């Protein structure tokens, strides 16, 4: 049984036309997505800004309430949980945020930041035990326990992210949602944090939902990757397969847009037209059709279903596989 199973998750935001008018239009931030994560594995959730990956991550933790759908954690639908059960759930699911500067309260010391949850959930009996546990966690993430009484601004971005990871680990979760945890870091530090996350995963059998917009980073850490565009998963496959045999035009465009650090390679680029715009009330047709290099009339009219290429690779495109490179 998978650790986490998301079924038909939807999050719609109403577009208000006035204070009293009923909303007729919705921004479909997350539009009917489904995926699952096994214990100890990583699912990479990839897409550009506005695709809904961050919203999806927040919905899984119920930091935002989904509009519809089911989220099964350890077999139980957490959307039915009341506050007491939700509290207990917090110890099992955690999150690491993108911005290492804003995710730590500047007015609290490291001990409080990392140890807050421990006292709250009574995982330690007193402040002495709390100190010990926090020191242990800090060592786990590669930081010295001397920093217990320091403030966040005394640390660099990479160190702060480690503190945030220590905080996420404090309650002993089995799933951590990593929301672009390395996007704000320098390249050399990115590598350190990614290595840390992989090590922790092995040690503690952690499952990750790794949200990112950088495909190359995601590939290193994920077993499966789901590519999102405008609230929908347009392709989902094991990571090696996604890179070797991308099917969806958007995936191909993403892959080809990554600047490769080698001036010899002139990549074959898939050109994506125009800009991402929110289309509201999209009942039929493919979300990507307006920008797709190979879209035609049919793409705008038909209902697009998931097409299974093999048991673990599906794509939401009726034209997959025939793309002209430029």
């Amino acid at each position, binding site marked *: 049984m998978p650790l986490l199973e998301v079924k038909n998750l939807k999050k719609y935001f109403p577009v208000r036309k006035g204070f009293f008018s009923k909303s007729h239009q919705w921004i479909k931030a997350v539009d009917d997505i489904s995926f699952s994560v096994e214990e100890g594995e990583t699912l990479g959730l990839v897409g550009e800004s506005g695709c809904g990956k961050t919203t999806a991550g927040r919905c899984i933790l119920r930091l935002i309430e989904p509009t519809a759908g089911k989220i099964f954690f350890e077999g139980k639908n957490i959307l039915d949980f009341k506050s007491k059960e939700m509290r207990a759930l917090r110890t099992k699911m955690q999150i690491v945020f993108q911005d290492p500067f804003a995710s730590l309260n500047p*007015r609290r010391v490291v001990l409080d930041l990392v140890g807050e949850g421990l006292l709250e959930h009574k995982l330690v009996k007193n402040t002495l035990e709390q100190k010990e546990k926090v020191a242990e966690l800090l060592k786990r993430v590669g930081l010295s326990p001397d920093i217990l009484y320091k403030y966040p601004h005394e640390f660099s971005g990479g160190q702060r992210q480690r503190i945030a990871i220590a905080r996420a680990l404090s309650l002993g979760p089995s799933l951590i949602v990593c929301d672009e945890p390395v996007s704000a870091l320098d390249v050399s530090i990115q590598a350190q944090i990614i290595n840390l996350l992989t090590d922790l995963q092995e040690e503690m059998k952690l499952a990750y939902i790794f949200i990112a917009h950088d495909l190359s980073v995601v590939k290193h850490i994920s077993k499966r990757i789901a590519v999102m565009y405008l609230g929908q998963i347009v392709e989902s496959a094991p990571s090696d397969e996604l890179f070797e045999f991308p099917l969806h035009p958007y995936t191909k465009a993403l892959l080809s847009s990554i600047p490769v650090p080698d001036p010899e390679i002139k990549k074959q680029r898939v050109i994506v037209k125009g800009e991402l715009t929110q289309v509201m009330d999209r009942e039929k047709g493919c979300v990507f059709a307006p920008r797709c290099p190979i879209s035609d009339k049919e793409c705008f009219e038909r209902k697009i279903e998931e097409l299974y290429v093999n048991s673990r690779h599906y794509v939401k495109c009726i034209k997959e596989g025939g793309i002209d490179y430029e």
Partner: protein
Amino acid sequence: MLYFLKYVIKELELKLSPITLKRLERFRKNSLSYASFLILIVLYVVSLFADFIANDKPLVVFYKNKIYFPVLFFYPGDTFGLGKSDIPNYKELQKREPFREGSGNFMIFPPIPYGYNESLFFEGENPPTPPTLKNLLGTDDRGRDILTRLIYGYRISFSFALLITAAGMIIGVMIGALQGYYGGVLDISMQRFIEIISALPFLYIIIIISSSLGRSFWVLFLLFIMFDWIGISYFIRSEFYKLREMPFVEASRALGIGDGKIMFRHILPNALTPIITFLPFDLIGAIFSLSALDFLGFGLPPPAPSIGELIRQGMNNISSYWLSLFPAGFLFFILLLIAFVGEGVRSAFDPRDYHKME
């Protein structure tokens, strides 16, 4: 409730973050503000001991080998050889036989030997009397020493203003926090309510209610508080709206920390800036409003000493300049000092390097 107290004390004391320490440093460096602050504190503390500084009762009486402290305790007349139900008038007593030179009995009066309600009569002069060596600032229209009244008046108005400001701040912060954190219907309905209250004319309401309920300290206190909290709630509401979106708040929610704790532990310490910068000006407003009410005759009931009341006497006796000059001057001085402190606090919290752009 216990939670609240525990958190306030634990969270806001002693855990002075480096941010706070830096701000204190900057404030201290601003000599004008720092000096003003010290003067205000000293004056206030001194005024708290007003009873020992200016009083028509002596500090110590030594009578028949026993020590008495009339300034602290009340002694019936027969303690000093008067009738049992007589109230000793110590100044009179001092002139009489048992206390003449060499008798071994003596009294020690405070440096300013006048009570705030003691009418003094001078030969051939009608009150108010101009400043003399004995009455440094003169007397008012009932012959009471002005310096004494100013000291006691300062104590009352400043204490009153502090109380109002503190109570108003607490209420305003709580309401603003709830509005900003929860938003939605709570916020909108609270806003409408605030708008209605803000539309009420403060002074008129107080006048009306004072006239019907009679003037009393508590009536005034409650009325002031009813209006005072609104100002700070606007700022706190916007700070909470802004801060509740911060990732570190989300992180705490993800850890399962409850709303109340998040508000006090995480958001409030980051929202202190408007509170601290607003406080001095709130204080000025309170002192000024109280003086204005006293001036109009709707403030504290007589014979409470107050600066506003003295100024009104000054208006009624315009030729006696000391009745207008000293009380108004004193009020101006105090408010000016608070304004300096406020300015210093504001710039300590928000320093900008002003440089030339080329």
